[in-house]
């Protein structure tokens, strides 16, 4: 399965900013995404920013990582400058159209 650029960046930043190993960082982000109802391959930057704000700080705290909110803010700032790579044609986007006006 291919992974989105947002996922790759957040994992690598988390690895650098904490004492987590690559595997631990990726596992933590995967769990945060699962908690948020998102997937590694389809998560978009805007969605990842919300995860960093609302889900990730608790995930980091539960793993004993100090100043999780600050770490998340730092990662979010880096993510803001990255181009989106996730697909546009998600099930949510398709179902958002299906009751649209049929002109």
């Amino acid at each position, binding site marked *: *399965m*291919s992974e989105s650029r947002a996922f790759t960046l957040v994992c690598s930043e988390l690895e650098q900013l904490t004492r987590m190993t690559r595997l631990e960082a990726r596992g933590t982000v995967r769990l945060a995404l699962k*908690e*948020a*109802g*998102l*997937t590694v*391959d389809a998560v978009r930057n805007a*969605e990842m920013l*919300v*995860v960093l704000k*609302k*889900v990730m700080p608790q995930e980091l705290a539960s793993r004993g990582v100090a100043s999780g909110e600050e770490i998340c803010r730092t990662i979010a700032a880096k993510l803001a400058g990255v181009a989106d790579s996730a*697909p546009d*044609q998600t*099930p*949510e986007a*398709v*179902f*958002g*159209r*299906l*009751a*649209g*006006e*049929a*002109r």
Partner: protein
Amino acid sequence: MQIVAALAGLLSVVFCWVVSVRLLLLARRTRQAPELLIGLGLLLAGGLWSPLMAVGRQATTLPDALRAALVIAGALCGLCGMSCIAIFNWRVFRPSGALPVVLVLASIGALVGIAAAQTLGPGWLHFAREERGPWTNASALGAAIYLWSCIEAGRQHAMLKRRLRIGLADPVVTDRMRIFTLLMSSSFFASSVFAVFQTLHIPVAGTTLGLWLTAAVSILISLFLCLAFVPPAGYLDLVRRRAAAEA
């Protein structure tokens, strides 16, 4: 009871036509494959397959050639419609990976296979008269495709509910996914029941049980089609208000 079942069946067929035409018009405007696939799937499998088969099977006063032609047309609609729904599952829910492609090819291959076996074996007039032959397995194949839709849509709905909690999903789209799951579950249930009866060679068309089943499932399918694809404004307000209250 016969009149209630006939009216309920007619209602669901008309709803299928209305919804599928809306989806096809939407596809013409957006030029996107998903709305085209689900529009064709609903029109062919939901709106034409059963009525053509019912007339071909039960209108015994029609000439044999016409009855055979009607069930052939019905089978073609069933084959193309169910194929569209299988491709929709693949393209919308599982666009990457080899397994969904295998599932789609297997579904279409099996449908083509039983249609060819019916043509080369007992023939379509035999099906129109006796409802016997390889094509009787079409209900079971349809049930399998509906089950696939149901599982995928249910999974997506569970994910959307999680997203909704952190403000990442639209409550209306989340609810539409729930209704679509219920629509596919009803279709799966109806197809499975008819498949079991056909496999056991128990006549169900026209019986009291068959009429009750037809009426109940038709009413449910009409309701779900309406709420998923042409939702009334009042219903959408209710969904939004409920989501706001839960937030």
